[in-house]
């Protein structure tokens, strides 16, 4: 049995969106109730559409923002409420790869400085030792070591993403939070980066929290998947279970909506009606009931609890057992 590296329990994040000293305060719940675990050396993915809270969850775990309530345990230690000054270890163990390789690298720094920076902050290595590590890291991510003295703008999107990965890996982290790491890249480049991430995972026993809206990418890279809708996880399952037998109506709709790159499988789709509700003013009860094809009275009144259906699959839906009949 693999060790649990990260445990997230009932995580909640509320942002204040309006109000001040004299005005009525308004809040939006970006993350309402999120719980999951990541085992060592495995990939857990969060999927969902824009505004579902998947990026906020990632940022909470790296403590770029502070949780409102709930707990985040890393290697058995609670890290959700550490003070800014105590975050050093966490930042070494948990690193992040960002979506936009154009915005996430400092244009005024050379590639070697970008990759070296975490070492300056987290280690007491000498300049020479740091430089050796940087060159080694460039090799590992598949970049020519001659590139070390260039600036980020001289590189293509895929190469920049490699630089971002090198920067994340240099502190020898245990967990990498990858927030849409390939969605800004062309498909031929996207597959290069996905292959690299998989290779690195095997070589360094890394765990990934992979955040993405793209189900086919998620299926390729994950061991386990959590499907999010309006701030909550509605279904958690192993990759095999989720794609072979999705249970939640939202998961089903999401999988059915993905255009398949094979014209022979073209079919008329049962598309979900309506838009994603505004998270400032979420629907009562099950937040999906406004778009759900099987919604009943109960769904408007009561928030469904997460229930384990099989060993591989848990789902938050009142009528999951009845789906086949409806």
């Amino acid at each position, binding site marked *: 049995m693999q060790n649990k590296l990260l445990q997230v329990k009932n995580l909640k994040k509320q942002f204040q969106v309006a109000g001040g000293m004299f005005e009525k305060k308004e809040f939006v719940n970006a993350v309402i109730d999120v719980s999951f675990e990541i085992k060592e050396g495995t990939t857990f993915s969060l999927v969902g*559409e*824009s505004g579902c809270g998947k990026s906020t969850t990632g940022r909470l775990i790296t403590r770029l923002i502070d949780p409102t309530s709930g707990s985040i345990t890393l290697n058995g230690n609670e890290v959700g409420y550490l003070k800014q000054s105590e975050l050093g270890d966490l930042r070494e163990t948990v690193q992040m790869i960002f979506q936009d390789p154009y915005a996430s690298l400092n244009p005024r720094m050379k590639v070697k400085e970008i990759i070296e920076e975490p070492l300056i902050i987290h280690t007491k290595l000498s300049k020479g030792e740091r430089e050796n590590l940087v060159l080694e890291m460039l090799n590992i991510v598949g970049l020519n070591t001659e590139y070390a003295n260039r600036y980020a703008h001289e590189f*293509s*999107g*895929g*190469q920049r993403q490699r630089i971002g990965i090198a920067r994340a890996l240099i502190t020898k982290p245990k967990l990498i939070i990858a927030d849409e790491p390939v969605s800004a890249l*062309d*498909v*031929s*480049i*996207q*597959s*290069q980066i*996905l*292959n690299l991430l*998989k290779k690195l995972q095997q070589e360094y026993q890394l765990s990934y929290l992979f955040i993405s*809206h793209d*189900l*086919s*990418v998620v*299926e*390729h890279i994950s061991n386990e998947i959590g499907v999010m809708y309006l701030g909550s996880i509605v279904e958690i399952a192993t990759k095999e279970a989720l*794609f072979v037998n999705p249970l939640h109506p939202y998961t089903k*709709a*999401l*999988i*059915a*909506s*993905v*255009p*398949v*790159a*094979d*014209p*022979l*499988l*073209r079919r*008329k*789709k049962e*598309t*979900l009606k309506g*838009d*994603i509700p505004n998270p400032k003013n979420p629907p009562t009860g099950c937040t999906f009931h406004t778009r759900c094809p099987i919604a009943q009275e109960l769904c408007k009144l009561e928030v469904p609890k997460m229930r384990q259906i099989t060993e591989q699959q848990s789902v938050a839906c009142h009528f999951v057992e009845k789906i086949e009949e409806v």
Partner: protein
Amino acid sequence: MNENVLEVINLETIFKRDQQEIKILRGVNFSIQRGEVLGLVGESGSGKSITSLSIMKLFHGTSGEIKNGSISFHGTDLTKLDEASMRQLRGKKISMIFQEPMTSLNPVLKIGKQLTESIEMHMKLTRKQSTAHAIKTLKSVGIGRAEELMNEYPHQLSGGMRQRVMIAMAMACEPELLIADEPTTALDVTIQAQILELMKQLKEKNDTAILLITHDLGVVAEMCDRVVVMYAGQVVEEADVFELFANPKHPYTKGLINSVPKIGDRKEVLDSIPGNVPSPQNMPQGCKFAPRCSNAMEKCHEHEPEIETITESHFCSCWLYASKEVALHAK
């Protein structure tokens, strides 16, 4: 039924920078028939969007210019038309949907105003009639509360709603050709499915020809009748959609199709194409794809392949399928 709405022949578009001409399109050829959806695929930098801007002649404020070739729309060569005549066509006979519904609607004008503007101009209707027509069009794209929406501003709408409004604007004058440049790329999958379904319905109803520009092969497989694959400003392969996915010929097309992770496919390592798209200032000699191609031969690096006919409706420009030999430079 076999009537070509649009014929693009040997289109070359250049941009000027520092007194230099940079060739972005290097001889693009394709045609679209009535009621047909033609997919234009390729990665960023392949010239897909420049092709659409060239057809619309939307070069205002840029150094872009059509250098050679012709764009024949029902027999009229668009490259020869002046700006005033183009204005008569845009939005009426040819319209366009852009990728970013957020930035392509005017934020300070109400939806109604933006919709009726082109209707009044092109259809010569009174204000009252054009308002009625606008509401009708909004309803046809699945917007239930069309009357209310006319008085709202773009920022009050969701991404999917904005894209519906964009489509309504494009379809309002019942164009014969609709150019959709990555129409669903900025949208979530469930909304994307709605919009694609809507575009199909509108096409069936009005027999509109659609030029669908996308990088997403899933969208292509779902929507298109025929596909044109572009690389580095040229068409490298053209085929019927079923033929293209079942029997791709060009190594680039093969690479693209194999790079896409597919649901249900338990492949450990994805195929990928090494390297990057060459920049227009720095085009390799010979076949532009040769430096990334695993099948590249000596002649690929020296000579550009011509477009070859594989079957009646399948064309590919690659030396692997060349019918005539070419002399290599002695080394």
